[in-house]
Each structure stands twice: as C-alpha cells, then as structure tokens.
C-alpha cells in the first residue's frame, strides 16, 4: 500500500495530549498563585511551560487547559470585583507559562533566518566555484594550448603526434570542467529561466545516465529567482535519486502553479522503497532529502514522498508564492 510521509518530522510525532500529571500541576500552581500571588508560583508556571514545550505539547492545548482552570476559579469567586481580580492574576500566570513558547518561536525565526543566509552564502559560493572551474581553468587551458603549439614546432613530426594526443586529453578536461560548472551553477537558469534550464538538465541527465527525463509545465513565468533556484535543485536531486538509487528508466517532471503556490512533482518508474525506512536519518541523508527539506523550509515550502517497493517513487513539492 502506498502511504504518505510528510516532512518536517515534527508532524509525525503523535501528540500525546496533556497528561493528567501536567494538567493537575498546572491547576494546582494556578490555584496557589491566585491565593498567594507569590513569585515562586510564577516560576512554577514558567517551568510547566518549558516542560510542555519540551514534551511537544501544542500551545492551543495549553491555552485550553488554562481557560478551563481559570473559568472554574472565576465561577468560584464571590463577587464581580473578585472575579475581575482572578481573571487579571490568571492572565499574568498564563503569560508566564507561555513565555517558553515565545522563546521557542523566536529561536525558530532566528534559525530560519540563519538558514536563509547560509543558503544564500552557499549559492554564492557555488557560483564562485563554478566560475573558477570553468572560466579560470578555461583561461589557463587556452594558454597551455598556445604554449604546446610553440613547443610542438620545435619537435620532430613523430613527437608532435604525441603532443596532439595531449591536446585531445586537454579538450576532454575542458569538456568535463564545463559540464561540472554548468551543473553547479546552471547558466540557463539566470539566462533563460526555470523551464529551459530544467529542459537542458533533463537532456544532460538523459545523455549521461540513460534515464529518460521529461519536463512539462503550465503557467510558470515570472517566478521569483529564489524559488526557481530551489525548484531547480530539488529536481536535480530527485532525478539523481531516480537514476542512482531507483535505477529508473523514465522520470517525469511536472510543474504547475495554483492558488498562490507553485507545485512540482517528480515521478519515476524505479524500484521504489518501503516508506517505513524513511524514518531512518541515514536513508534520508542518502537520498539528499535533508538538503531538499532545508531548501524548502527557507521558503516555507513542504514536500511529500510516495513510494512502495516495485511501484516507483513520486516526490511532490509545494512552495507558497507569497510570504
């Protein structure tokens, strides 16, 4: 049976619900605070908040618990003046209990921003590398050819033939460096946009590995360059998996845009795998899924994998167009 596996990991963790233990401690601490307005009670609120963050409880569950408890205390109060006091104090208590969530949220935002910066630095670095590989090495190769030509004149004919051989090898090196540079930093992406870039990627992969890759798209013009770059990398990674791990014969790339999202699916007819294996970090690393996930996360995107042994693999990616 085909199943779904969603990244990120967080969502696969079954939400345990509030244990009666935490629930009881929360109600007791709130009650103590309402009685004594003691700072030590606020500290208990903070610790309970931390614990619930650590145990992966949802913020909504916590608020619901708080609401239930404070309503109960309000209803027990003797006058409207007292219930107003109870409400106010329980608000203070709630803020304290929620502050660990606030910190987590901030840290998440910061981590995401750092990831985005890292990603940009990485792209810059890749571009620099590609340039060094191709342009700079190309200049040096040009000079080497000129020098060889000079040397070749001073040589007898039979040795000259050997030098010709060397020059043919240099040509192969040049081809390989160019191929590598284009793969690292596809000039077509900046030059002609995503679809032509993917089509030349498909042609290159087909030529190199024999995997037949087709690319189809609808409504794809005017995507932000950042999204184009990520989609290109995701397709590149997925197609690599199809040929390297799944031994597929064909892979279909389909891109479309709808309701503020751009969607991309990459479907192959390879060996597929048992999705339960995906929970192992090693397998996800091997498939480059962590890289895909991180690139998508920066843009608020998500991805989904469908696979089963003997049934091929489909990777579906979704990225919001506006954030």
């Amino acid at each position: 049976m085909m199943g779904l596996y969603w990244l990120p990991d967080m969502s696969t963790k079954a939400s345990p619900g509030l244990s009666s233990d935490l629930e009881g401690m929360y109600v007791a601490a709130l009650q103590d605070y309402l009685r004594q307005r003691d700072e030590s009670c606020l500290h208990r609120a903070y610790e309970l908040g931390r614990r619930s963050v650590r145990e992966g409880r949802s913020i909504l569950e916590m608020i619901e618990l708080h609401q239930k408890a404070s309503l109960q205390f309000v209803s027990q109060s003797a006058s409207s003046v007292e219930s107003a006091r109870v409400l106010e104090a329980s608000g203070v208590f709630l803020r304290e209990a929620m502050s660990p969530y606030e910190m987590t949220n901030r840290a998440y935002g910061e981590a995401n921003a750092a990831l985005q910066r890292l990603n940009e630095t990485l792209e810059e670095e890749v571009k620099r590398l590609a340039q060094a590989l191709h342009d700079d090495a190309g200049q040096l190769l040009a000079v080497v050819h000129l020098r060889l030509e000079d040397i070749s004149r001073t040589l007898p004919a039979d040795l000259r033939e050997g030098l010709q051989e060397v020059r043919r090898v240099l040509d192969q090196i040049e081809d390989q460096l160019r191929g590598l540079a284009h793969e690292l930093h596809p000039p077509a992406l900046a030059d002609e946009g995503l679809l032509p870039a993917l089509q030349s990627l498909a042609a290159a992969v087909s030529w190199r590995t024999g995997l037949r890759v087709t690319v189809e798209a609808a409504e794809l013009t005017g995507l932000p360059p950042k999204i184009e770059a990520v989609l290109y990398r995701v397709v590149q990674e997925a197609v690599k998996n199809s040929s390297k791990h799944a031994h597929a014969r064909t892979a279909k790339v389909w891109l479309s845009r709808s309701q503020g999202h751009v969607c991309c699916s990459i479907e192959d007819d390879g060996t597929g795998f048992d999705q339960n294996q995906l929970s192992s970090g090693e397998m996800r690393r091997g498939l480059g899924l962590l890289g895909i996930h991180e690139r998508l996360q920066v843009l608020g995107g998500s991805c989904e994998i469908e696979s089963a042994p003997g049934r091929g693999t489909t990777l579906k990616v979704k990225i919001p167009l506006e954030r």
Partner: protein
Amino acid sequence: MPIQVVLADDHQIVRDGMKVFLEREGYKVNAEAQNGQEAVRLALKLQPDVVVLDITMPILNGLDAAREILHNAPDTKAILLSMHDESKYVLEGLRLGVKGFVTKTHAAEDLVQAIRQALRGATYVSPELSQAVFEAIQTKSDIVQDPLTPRERQVLQLVAEGKTSKETANLLNISTKTAETHRARIMEKLNIHETAGLVRYAIRRGLIRP
C-alpha cells in the same frame, strides 16, 4: 610592414600567451587592453589592421566593443575570442560585421587562419562554434533587437556589474546626472523597474556572464 594587432582580454596570462604566439607568427601586437572600453580607445587611436577581442570583459564586453570599433574604424577587422558555451553570440557578432570567431582553447590552430581570412575580407568561425550558427539559421531563431543605444547598453552593463551612478559617470566621462538619466531611460525603454530585473536582462542579452 607587419600586420598590426590590438589585443584585448581581461586575463594578463592569456594576453601574454597570445602576444608571444602572434609575434612568432609574424604579427605586431602594438597594444594590449584589459577591458572593452580600453580596446575601443586603443583601436580608434591606433587604427590597427586587426583587433582581437575576448567576448567576456568588464566595463564593456567584446561584442559591444566590436560594434563601436567597426562603426568608427571601418578598416579594422574584428575577431572575437569565445569560450565553447558562448556560441550564442556568434550570429549577432556576424551581423555586426565581426570577421572571425575563435574558441579560446583552439586559438593556436584557428587564430592565424581567422586573421588571414579577415584580411582577405572573408569570415572564419571555429568548427566548435559553427555548429551553433547552422542551428540558429535552421531554427530561424532571430536575434531579439533591443531598443537601447550603444551608450545605453554600456550603462546597462555597468549597472549590471554593480557600479554606482557615480562610478558609471567616471568610467564614461559623463556627469552623474547624465548617467542617472541613461539609467532611467533604460528602465523606461525596457519596462523594467528594479535593478535585479536589469541584471537579468543584461545576462540574457549576454552583456555579462550569468
């Protein structure tokens, strides 16, 4: 008198290699430039028989330098040095009147031949690049004419290289205000209103490398 050559490439090591090679072949390299703007200045001043230009150069690329040289010094023959993946510029260059396209790594075999052909009034394109010309003709792909003047194209290249209006003005010997006016005109003509868009356009038109 030997054939006079002006040589332009932004890599010193390539210029050195080319110069030794050309002089051994009996040519006289009487000036070297490290960008397109310098190449134009030297070519117009010295009026050489041949100017050999690298396609990718800062400040002014080889193609636009050739355009300006051929326009103002019609007796000079222009030959462009190209990398393998720059074949898309060949058709446009030929229309400008460029007489030779030579792949840089095969300059040893092809450059002399290209110069000889150019001086005879003929045209030479290295085999690795000529395939692209045939393909372009077969697919009837036409060069998109951009609406910019040569000066605007140069301002666009400088903007895409990340130069400020002031730097642009200094390089082109114009006032900052004029540079800004050029920039505004470019944006208006192309209907592109942010720098990122201009950079993309410049890449697409081959003014700078991706």
